[in-house]
Each structure stands twice: as structure tokens, then as C-alpha cells.
């Protein structure tokens, strides 16, 4: 067996972590834009979106480290990772923990759209390549899981932020 199957699995892993963020992001921005009061709960939390994305990226980093455990050598990394550039791109999401980068929310959307385009590519190319509906069906199942993961990460960051802010206020008082 060549490594095309393993590449496909690795692509599904990347989709599971990152592809759902773009829809969560645009939906959250859309909802906050439609609300009259800019001081409402959602609007104030929109700025946390890149941190949620960074959290997902951190989870992906842990997932990759677990895969190559216990030999963290370049050779072993080469054996276990097949889509080098795409994995490296995914791992860059960890950088959104940096406040200076997370201020530019649109960058996280652009980062995530790369993975959404992988789904778009399968939707467009797979039917032409032989009508294999299973590829697209797989992508959409993984995309659904990614939506849940990114939504959970967003809610988790909001909760963490609220707890941190509340504790910070008490400390100041």
C-alpha cells in the first residue's frame, strides 16, 4: 500500500480540527452584526474567536505529539507525517495565542479557509473523478464534527475568559 491512504487519513484529521472554524466565525460575526446593542454578550466575546482557534490548534499539536510518541526525532516525524506543509500550516494556528496576532481576527478566518477549501476541492473534483460519494460524505461527517469541536472550543474560551475576568476583578478589589 502506498502512502495515499495515510495522506487521506491525515487530511481528515486536519479537517476535523480546523475546517469548521470558518463557519463558526462567520456565523458569530453575522449574529453580532445583526444585534442592535454592540455591548451585548456575543459582541463582546467575538474578540475571543482567534483564541478559540488557537485552543483547537493546541489540541491538534497535542494530537500530533501523541502520534509520534515516544520518539521525537525528525526521522520519526517524517515517518508519521505525510502532508508536511498542510500539517505545518495547521500548527501555525497555535500562534493565535499571541495577543498581537489574535487582534487581527480575519487572519484566523483565512487560516481556516485553507482547510475548508480542501472540502470544496473534494466536492468539485470527486464527482468528476468517478462519482465516489463516500469521499464527500466522509468529509461532511468530519466537517460536522469540526463544527462541534470549534463551537465547544469557543464556548470553552468564553467560559475561561469569564472566570479569569471575574477572578481578576475580585483580586483588584
Amino acid at each position, binding site marked *: 500500500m502506498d502512502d495515499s491512504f495515510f495522506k487521506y487519513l491525515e487530511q481528515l484529521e486536519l479537517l476535523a480540527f480546523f475546517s469548521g472554524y470558518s463557519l463558526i466565525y462567520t456565523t458569530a*460575526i453575522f449574529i453580532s452584526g445583526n444585534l442592535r446593542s454592540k455591548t451585548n454578550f456575543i459582541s463582546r466575546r467575538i474578540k475571543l474567536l482567534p483564541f478559540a482557534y488557537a485552543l483547537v490548534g493546541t489540541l491538534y499539536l497535542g494530537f500530533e505529539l501523541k502520534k509520534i510518541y515516544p520518539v521525537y526525532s525528525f526521522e520519526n516525524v517524517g515517518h508519521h507525517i505525510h502532508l508536511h506543509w498542510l500539517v505545518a500550516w495547521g500548527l501555525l494556528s497555535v500562534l493565535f495565542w499571541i495577543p498581537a496576532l489574535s487582534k487581527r481576527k480575519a487572519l484566523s*478566518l483565512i487560516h481556516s479557509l485553507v482547510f475548508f477549501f480542501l472540502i470544496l476541492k473534494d*466536492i468539485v473534483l470527486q464527482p468528476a473523478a468517478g462519482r465516489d460519494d*463516500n469521499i464527500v460524505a466522509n468529509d461532511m461527517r468530519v*466537517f460536522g464534527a469540526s463544527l462541534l469541536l470549534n463551537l465547544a472550543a469557543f464556548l470553552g474560551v468564553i467560559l475561561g475568559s469569564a472566570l479569569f475576568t471575574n477572578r481578576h476583578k475580585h483580586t483588584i478589589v
Partner: protein
Amino acid sequence: MKPHYNKILLTGLVLISGYGIFSGCTHKDVVLPAAASTTPIITHGHHVHLPGLTAGDTTQWKFDKVHSAVNWSTPFLEVGADLTGKFNQFGVADLSTAQMQNYTVTGQPVADTSWAFYENEPAKTHFAGYVQINQINTGEPARDGGCLVTTLATTKIVAGTQNLTVQNVARIKTTSVAFDPAGNDYIVTLNFTWQGGLGAPLTESITGKLTYIPEALVPAGTYSDFGLQLSFQINKADFGIVSTETADKIDIVVSANFNNK
């Protein structure tokens, strides 16, 4: 990003996702794979093996006593792990009354030719064999040549003598061989005859299982070999053997190799 662009992007993402779900829907229920068949795969070849003693005649198959064994096992003290042992002297011969005597030889006292094996015609398969009871070997010389001789109601080994007297042999002889419907093996019905602690030999009809290990060229490639493995169980109490050191049920496995050297 301007709200206008976000709306366009959101619309695009929703439309693409929706189309993906729609086009990925096969409209087919996921069919579970069929359950694995529980029917055994039975294949019987057409090997026929007949005995002979002419060295170099590859059509004649010779019993390879040196590479064969008669092993037994039974729970120690009727409750413990298995106590195991074997018989050092045995053969594939249907002993007649006249043949049941002492032989002053070190090799096989009687020709091991009381057998025939037809892989695909089990009704034509038959074999007979014997073990010398006092040649029991549990790996403890003091026990094998001591209390076990008394327990098994036989006599001690006399050096240079093969003891095939009626008190010292247990014999088997097939009465029918048939295909095992549950697998590739054969169901064997045999008469097991042993005097044991009784006043005269007792014959019991016993059912066992026979496995055929097909003929194959040995690694050196100079001759072929095939194997037969027979397993059955006896009840020692039926033969007047009284001992609480072992359970009544004794499992016996005969591993016989044959070659055409």
C-alpha cells in the same frame, strides 16, 4: 472584515456545506457486512497412505517411531494442574494373542504395519496400536519404576526386553472412521483394551478425534512425511486402577509420524 463581505462569505460557506451534505448523501442505507459464516470450511484431499517395510520404496510409508509420541495428561490429585507423561515404547501393530510375549530385542518387536489411511475415504481408514504400560515416563525415575508399576498392575522393566505380555499392554483398534462434520478432522470409534487392575483384559468402545497432517516434502527434500494425531479419553477406574493421585479421566494424545524413506 466588513459585514457585507462576511454575509457573502457566510452565504458561500453555508451553500457549499449544504451542497456537500446533499451530494455526499448516497441515499442508501449503510448495509452491515454479512455475518461471518459459522460453517467450517472442510477440504479433504485424496492422499492414500499404505504401510510397508521396504526401505527406499517411496510408495510404502513407514512408521517413524523415533519422531512419534504417546502422551497423556490428567489433573493432579483430581483437582490440580495437569500431571503429564508419555510412554517410551509403543507401536502400530494389531497384536495377536501369540504375539503377546516378551521379546529380547531393543528395537520394535512387531512390524508397525497395522494401519492404512485414506484421506477422502475414511471408511477404508483403519489402524491398531499398543503401548507398553511399564514404559510410562513422567520424568521422575523413582515414581516411574516404583509406585506407578504397582499402581498400574504391571511389572518392572527388564533391560533389553520388550514386554508385550497381556498385563503390560494397552491396545487400540479402530472399528470405524468417519468425517468430522464440524471440521477437517475425523471421528474415530475404537476399541480400547487393557487389563489394568482387573483379572482379565477389558475392551471398551471409545470415540476420539483424528487429525491428518498432510503429506509434504521434508525441508531437506529427500523424502516426504505425513502425520496423524489421535486424541481420546479413558476412565482409569473402569480398568481397576485405584489411585487418588490422578483423576479418573485421562486424556491421551497419540502423535504419529510416517515417512516414505
